[in-house]
């Protein structure tokens, strides 16, 4: 017995190796750290040279310093090295620790989030990778699988067309269609044949539990759905005993002996079974498969037109279709073929191809029985989630193994593409390089022209064309990828999915891949962020992913709430860490100018250590609880995510602001301290403690000013920290051995000390507050406006409709609650049901310009017609 398990399987081999991921933010922080490092080196060199010059020109005159006339050979290096030591605090080591801490908390918040628990399976969201939460807020592209990700992967047989008669069209469920049941009960041969194929043309194994209930083990959800549907229509597949299949039809037991399985491959797109009817001894070939694989094999003269129509109709409803067929074989024909089949199966070279060829010989002259349509329902909230995320400026690519029409329909019902007047689909297909090239260029041209318009253009490409495009026209395809907000890729393989991720990453986009099955693992690992849906196809994807969620709709919350907050918080935390280090370092540098550029440290080592570890780290850590906007507001205005995507809160410009603030505050602290503690008060320990207190006071107010929402923890951390600062220093001041014995007590008794503190705070924070207020009110960012509206109970709250919108497929305009009063003219026409489509639809989506006519005529056949009247 051979098991196909483990890493040697096809899936295992194509899985690839996961690389450690680095967020865009971490990369930016690293860059900034590098810049600060260079700045530090420059400072050290300049001060080192200045120090040596001062030493040689001035210090030797100062007899009390007693510089030796002849120093050791390394004398020139001493002062620069001292400055290096002094400036080493410029790069905050604590940032790494703080970041790791808050990042793990971000991840915990995701794990803890009640609103992301899948109620059905009680699966909470889980962040496997704790280090990349900020990237969630910067996602630009989402690549999503279809089956099981957007849909529930719960296949249900819904409609069928048997011998030209449609069933299930009225009530939407063929199993309950009275006509069909009547046909079965009256023994209509077509219906019975159809049911037989549904029941036994598969590799399903029925398992009978002791209580008599039959459950099915199936490799594919589709087969299970068909078998189940057959069972509920009285064609019960009850037992499989070696090669004998037992079917219970209306109480009578029918046995079939399986002679051969003609297996399903993705090239053949069909599978067949050869069985012998044990009662009549007839040999029958039962086939099922994709329409393009089955319908051409019908026997000559067979009218397949209705079936093509049925397939079209079903596909446009977003249903998965299977064509079922049958043929009676005569003994001789089967015997001959069976020999060939055995031989083909035992060849060593090109077996797959040989077997396919042999199968092909048998699978012809088929009698087409009908078309079965299986529904795979969209998960709850998928269209809303996608609409919200698209509003947030995230581009969606759908990568699926399904056929084009089904994919397009799903895409439409998911809000991937706006409906007709705004949206437009451009198809790229073709089997040859030429065709693909032509198509690609046409689509590109259209894209370039429509780029200026607020239009929603999506391209659709199938696996074959994609292969050619990626191989031969990579540049053109990359441009296309950049231009288009939406893409639908059908019939793609796992490695193609990964290649597409790679392509987008190479254009410097932040990508998020979401999928549920083993075939998505590579894409998930390849993407900047991999999200797995812990769904019905097992946990493979969820395990490989950075985040696993129970349902697709949680992605909105993951990105807009967790991702956004994480980004904002980290942006503040990291820049603040640099700010506080720079502040203390600038003071040291200024002090070196009044201490003969000799590299004296104003602060003692205990204070420096405590400054970094306690006084400034603790208050900023509670910024993990900071929320600039409420979750509700963000959900209403997903556009605000743009600030995170574009990296507006952490970039060299904002960093320069913090750098400037550090410099300004250092000047304030130093100048005020040195002037108010001049002359007889100018005692080293006291001055050092005054300057340190000034820094700690300032940082408390800086954190306060930058905090948007104060919970009790923030108050405790910010003001408690200030109290703790005094307590710690009182304790240290009580130790006779410490250098600062009694210093803090002396200072706290002096009115001048408190005067100095207030002066430092007012002088340091006044301009910052004024500038912030000015920008906040007169140059406000979108975030500011939303904050104001939210907190003042402005129009947002009074108009806000935050209830989840009903699952309409058409509500895709950019209407936000804010603009509710604004004109909606021209929109009402959009609210047409999309699915009731007719092939005779006329496209009207092209703009008025004559330029488009050229394309219209050219691309008529490829643009998918959707809206009846629009």
């Amino acid at each position, binding site marked *: 017995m051979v098991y196909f398990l483990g890493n040697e399987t096809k899936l295992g081999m194509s899985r690839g190796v996961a690389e450690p991921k680095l967020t865009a933010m971490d990369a930016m922080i690293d860059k900034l750290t590098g810049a600060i490092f260079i700045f530090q080196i420059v400072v050290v060199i300049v001060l080192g040279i200045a120090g040596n010059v001062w030493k040689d020109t001035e210090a030797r005159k100062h007899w009390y310093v007693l510089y030796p006339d002849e120093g050791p050979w390394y004398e020139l290096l001493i002062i620069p090295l001292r400055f290096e030591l002094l400036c080493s605090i410029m790069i905050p080591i604590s940032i790494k620790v703080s970041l790791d801490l808050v990042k793990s908390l971000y991840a915990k918040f995701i794990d803890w989030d009640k609103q992301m628990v899948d109620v059905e399976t009680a699966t909470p969201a889980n962040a496997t990778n704790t280090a990349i939460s900020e990237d969630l807020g910067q996602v630009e592209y989402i690549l999503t699988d279809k089956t099981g990700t957007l849909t529930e992967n719960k296949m249900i047989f819904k409609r069928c067309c048997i011998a030209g008669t449609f069933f299930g069209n009225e009530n939407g469920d063929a199993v309950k269609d009275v006509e069909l049941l009547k046909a079965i009960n009256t023994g209509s041969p077509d219906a019975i044949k159809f049911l037989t194929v549904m029941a036994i043309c598969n590799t399903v194994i029925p398992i009978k539990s002791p209580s008599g209930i039959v459950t099915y083990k199936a490799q594919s959800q589709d087969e299970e759905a068909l078998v189940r549907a057959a069972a509920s229509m009285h064609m019960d597949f009850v037992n499989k005993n070696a090669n004998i299949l037992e079917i219970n039809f209306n109480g009578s037991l029918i046995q079939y002996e399986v002679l051969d399985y003609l297996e399903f491959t993705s090239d053949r797109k069909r599978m067949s079974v050869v069985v012998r009817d044990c009662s009549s001894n007839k040999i029958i070939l039962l086939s099922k498969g994709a329409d393009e694989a089955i319908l051409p094999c019908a026997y000559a003269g067979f009218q397949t037109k209705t079936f093509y129509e049925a397939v079209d109709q079903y596909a446009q409803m977003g249903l998965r279709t299977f064509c079922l067929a049958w043929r009676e074989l005569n003994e001789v024909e089967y015997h001959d073929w069976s020999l060939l089949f055995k031989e083909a199966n035992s060849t060593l070279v090109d077996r797959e191809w040989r077997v396919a060829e042999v199968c092909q010989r048998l699978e012809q002259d088929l009698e087409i029985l009908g078309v079965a349509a299986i529904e795979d329902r969209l998960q709850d909230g998928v269209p809303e989630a996608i609409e919200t995320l698209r509003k947030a400026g995230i581009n969606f690519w759908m990568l699926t193994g399904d056929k084009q029409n089904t994919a397009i329909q799903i895409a439409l019902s998911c809000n991937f593409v706006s409906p007709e007047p705004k949206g437009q689909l451009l198809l790229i297909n073709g089997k040859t390089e030429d065709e693909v090239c032509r198509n690609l260029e046409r689509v590109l041209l259209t894209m370039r022209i429509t780029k200026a318009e607020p239009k929603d253009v999506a391209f659709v490409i199938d696996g074959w064309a994609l292969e050619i495009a990626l191989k031969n026209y990579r540049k053109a395809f990359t441009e296309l990828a950049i231009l288009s907000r939406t893409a639908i890729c059908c019939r793609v393989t796992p490695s193609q999915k990964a290649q597409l991720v790679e392509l987008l990453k190479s254009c410097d986009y932040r990508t998020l891949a979401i999928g549920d099955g083993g075939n998505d693992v590579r894409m998930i690992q390849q993407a900047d962020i991999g999200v797995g849906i812990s769904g019905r196809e097992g946990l493979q994807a969820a395990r490989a992913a950075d985040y696993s969620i129970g349902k697709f709709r949680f992605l909105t919350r993951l990105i807009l709430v967790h991702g956004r907050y994480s980004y904002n918080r980290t942006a503040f935390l990291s820049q603040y860490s640099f700010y506080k280090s720079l502040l203390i370092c600038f003071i040291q540098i200024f002090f070196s100018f009044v201490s003969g550029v000799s590299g004296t440290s104003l602060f003692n080592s205990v204070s420096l250590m405590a400054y970094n570890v306690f006084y400034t780290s603790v208050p900023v850590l509670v910024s993990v609880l900071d929320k600039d906007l409420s979750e509700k507001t963000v959900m209403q205005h997903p556009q605000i995510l743009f600030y995170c995507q574009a990296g507006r809160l952490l970039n060299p410009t904002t960093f320069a602001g913090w750098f400037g603030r550090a410099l300004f505050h250092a000047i304030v602290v130093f100048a005020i301290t040195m002037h108010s503690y001049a002359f007889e008060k100018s005692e080293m320990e006291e001055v050092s403690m005054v300057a340190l207190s000034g820094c700690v006071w300032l940082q408390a107010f800086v954190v306060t000013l930058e905090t948007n929402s104060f919970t009790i923890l923030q108050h405790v951390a910010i003001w408690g920290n200030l109290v703790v600062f005094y307590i710690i220093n009182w304790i240290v001041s009580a130790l006779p051995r410490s250098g600062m014995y009694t210093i803090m007590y002396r200072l706290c008794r002096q009115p001048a000390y408190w005067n100095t503190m207030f002066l430092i705070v007012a002088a340091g924070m006044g301009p910052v507050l004024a500038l912030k207020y000015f920008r906040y009110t*007169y140059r406000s960012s979108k975030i500011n406006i939303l904050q104001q509206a939210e907190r003042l109970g402005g129009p947002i709250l009074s108009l806000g409709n935050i209830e989840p919108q009903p699952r309409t497929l058409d509500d895709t305009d950019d209407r936000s609650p804010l603009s509710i009063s604004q004109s909606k003219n021209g929109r009402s026409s959009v609210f047409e049901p999309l699915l009731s489509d007719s092939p005779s639809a006329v496209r009207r989506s092209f703009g008025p310009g004559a330029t488009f006519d050229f394309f219209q005529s050219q691309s008529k056949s490829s643009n998918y017609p959707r809206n009846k009247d629009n």
Partner: protein
Amino acid sequence: MNPVTNGALKSKKTSKKPEYSRFTQQELPAWKPILTPGWVITSFLAIAFLFIPIGLVSLFASERVVEIVYRYDQDCVPEMYRGNVSAYIRNSLTNKTCIGNITVPKKMDPPIFVYYQLDNFYQNHRRYVKSRSDKQLRSAAYESSTKECEPEARFNKSGDPVPIVPCGLIAWSLFNDTYNLIKKDKVLNINKKGIAWKSDTKVKFGSNVYPKNFQSNDLIGGGKLNESIPLSKQEDLIVWMRTAALPTFRKLYGKINTSLEAHDTITVVLENNYNTYSFGGQKKLVLSTTSWIGGKNDFLGIAYLTVGGICLFMALNFILLYVFKPRPLGDPSYLSWNRKAVN
């Protein structure tokens, strides 16, 4: 996946189901202030109205302090040595006594503090500030712990290096000018007791530590110490060893407990021993009264007034801006995506 592991996983999953708490859901009640004009203008006005009076009071207190600064380093060099000051100051035989007069501008109430002020003297130089041994100063038991004191750590007593007490550059460079004040032929008593911090005399400088081998090397720095008085009583040394953070500093020399009337002329008889000439430093004698903010220092008052004034100015500006160019807060029409929708 086989059903057993699936079930096991599921039960594990359910047990992992998060507990509800406001913290884990990030729903702690929060105060969300925003920078409304009201808030900002009020706080600027509050700062202004708080700071301007404090500034005035501080300035007033500083103005009430009477301070006499008498620079003597230039005048006390005899004419004949003006061209070669170092020869004068380094020679222990030259007469260093110098007499000068100062006039009291306003009535000075006791206690009057007598300071010496040094300019361009880097007590905060790294080589200097580190060159001391707190252990040695504290206790006689640590007499030989002089590691930090280089280059003034040990005295080479006939080939045997013995520790210097107190060691280090700071002690070695002890300031040694002395002042005597005479008012109307009567010597003003300068009380030199209690000029050092209590914490220093009690804890940092040991009462059983006596100076040893001090200023015995060839190179003599500053003042000498009486070897029979313990360090805890050598208050001049203690004051000197509280290093200053700035190159300009004052150190307490003593206190006068009698009041000085306005227009009193005081004769200063001083010993000009200390060498600040080699590096162009200045020496000043300062007599000063004190107030609640300490000595005379206009900085705090002026800074308070300035900050208060600027805050007032900002507040007025913001009020004007608010009146003449009002901007409704949270106006949704400023959201670009809404603006697009309008167009």
